[in-house]
């Protein structure tokens, strides 16, 4: 009550200005219509059975989830999602780290190969999948190069990894840039100090540069993990999730059950699973960031 009394004279003194509210109307409508309402609806539909048009016909409680969790396919897809995330997350980081490390000292002419390392980030999943076909086909580049006869896109032993490697290639560019910025921000004095102490380039990188750039390192690993959960085009175009769901991740399951099979209720259940996976990952990221990242 007391607070209100204090505020009110202030409000009275200043004339009420409707401008900010009017300016925010479009944004509020937009986020309500295309984020919050559909999210609530996804939760609702996940507990129902829907018809071909996505209209809920029957409330079934937890049945959709019970069904999913009892299917071995679901657990395969769930596992794939994490295997894929781990390969893409750490694989992208390691290669991007190597590229950023060899580019971190600023020298004339650097711009050229810097641009080259960054370019794949501008390539979309559709043309990348065409390149992927060229690499992975039975008569494709990889088999020709290594004189092998591996069915990269149809043998269940390989499909998930084939898609993951293409995804790494696409994601290295942005990770490279973030790491480069981090490595370059490391102060020259600290590095020179390490040289005087007799640390070689590798030691210097591992013991000085990497810890000092740990915020970027962290950011990049998690950026790629959460990004991998959203990798869709290359899975659809290269393997279609196959064979037998062996290269299918949650995002593809949403597409398969929702769009291809028009089982919208199941697609919504998958959507919620994906939401929780991403949500928990971001929580872990914040938690670990506080604990582990070295801030000066």
């Amino acid at each position, binding site marked *: 009550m007391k607070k209100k009394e204090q505020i009110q004279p202030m409000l009275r003194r200043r004339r009420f200005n409707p401008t900010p509210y009017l300016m925010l109307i479009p944004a509020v409508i937009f986020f309500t219509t295309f984020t919050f309402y559909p999210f609530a609806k996804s939760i609702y539909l996940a507990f129902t059975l829907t018809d071909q048009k996505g209209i809920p016909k029957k409330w079934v409680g937890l049945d959709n989830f019970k069904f999913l969790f009892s299917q071995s396919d679901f657990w395969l897809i769930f596992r794939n999602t994490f295997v894929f995330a781990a390969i893409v997350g750490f694989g992208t980081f390691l290669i991007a780290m190597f590229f950023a490390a060899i580019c971190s000292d600023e020298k004339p002419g650097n711009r050229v190969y810097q641009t*080259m390392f960054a*370019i794949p980030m501008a390539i979309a999943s559709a043309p990348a999948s065409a390149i992927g076909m060229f690499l992975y086909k039975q008569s494709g580049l990889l088999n020709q190069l290594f004189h092998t006869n591996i069915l990269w896109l149809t043998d269940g032993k390989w499909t998930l990894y084939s898609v993951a490697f293409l995804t790494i*290639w696409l994601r290295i560019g942005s990770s490279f840039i973030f790491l480069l910025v981090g490595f370059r921000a490391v102060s020259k004095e600290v590095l020179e100090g390490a040289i005087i102490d007799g640390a070689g380039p590798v030691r210097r990188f591992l013991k000085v540069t990497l810890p000092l750039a740990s915020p970027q390192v962290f950011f990049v690993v998690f950026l790629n993990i959460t990004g991998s959960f959203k990798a869709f085009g290359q899975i659809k175009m290269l393997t279609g999730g196959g064979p037998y769901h062996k290269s299918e991740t949650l995002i593809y399951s949403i*597409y398969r059950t929702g769009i291809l099979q028009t089982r919208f209720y199941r697609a919504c259940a998958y959507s919620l699973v994906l939401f929780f996976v991403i949500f928990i990952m971001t929580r872990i990221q914040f938690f670990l960031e506080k604990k582990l990242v070295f801030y000066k």
Partner: protein
Amino acid sequence: MKMRRTTREKIIGFIIRFLIALLFLSPFFLSVSYSFRTDTEIMMTKGVTLFPRKAVLENYVWVFKHVAIFTYLKNSMLHYIMIMGAQIILCSMTAYAFAMFEFKGKKILFNLILFSMMIPGEVVLITNFLQVQSWGLANTYLGMVITALISSLGIFTLRQFYMSLPKDFKEAATLDGCGDIGFWLRIALPLSVPTIASMAIYEFVTIYNRYMWPLLMANKESMYTIQIGMDMLKGAESDNLGVILAGAVICIVPVVTVFVIGQKYIIKGMVSGGVKG
């Protein structure tokens, strides 16, 4: 002390790095090279060769003849213009309201936008699809862009810029009889043109490369964007690798050109938006 490097070492270093970069991009360069080869040459080649024995344009000719590639490119451009136009107006409007005013409920409304970022578009894909389809917007330009008309990143970037404007500007403008909206349209918005321009370059890559939503929305060939058209190329002439690669090259060239020319702005936008979050 061997701290000084000789010029020769520098050149060798540059060449080694350049070769690593070349190797890294080799899938792309080889795709370009193979897109200029005839079908028979691709089939007959054993191993991998860097250059075609005889460079031909027949794959490109095929693509231009049999696929409505210009329609796809036109659709992609329209897509970009519509989304970017809406984002410039809506993001700057929202950002301006948050940066320049103190009002009741500001914190709640701002948190609303922060919360929206926790729900990825992929999670609401299905329900958005059902909703937009039920409005009869499947196979329309509006339907294809409607879920992307505002970006939270754009709001934050512009808000940051508006907050950096000196308070004196606003006061002087108010004294001269310039209202809130007038200040936004005549002073704040024009001043933010460099920020908006770098946003527009960055977003070109994102919007041009949009795949999943347009895939759900466009079922007619006349509505395909270049990304969806690419996908269909694979189905059209199933196993002709040269044609597929030619399509990929046509699809990649515009966006990589924009990226290389505008990389300074793209990187700036990425770094300022990214690491802090």
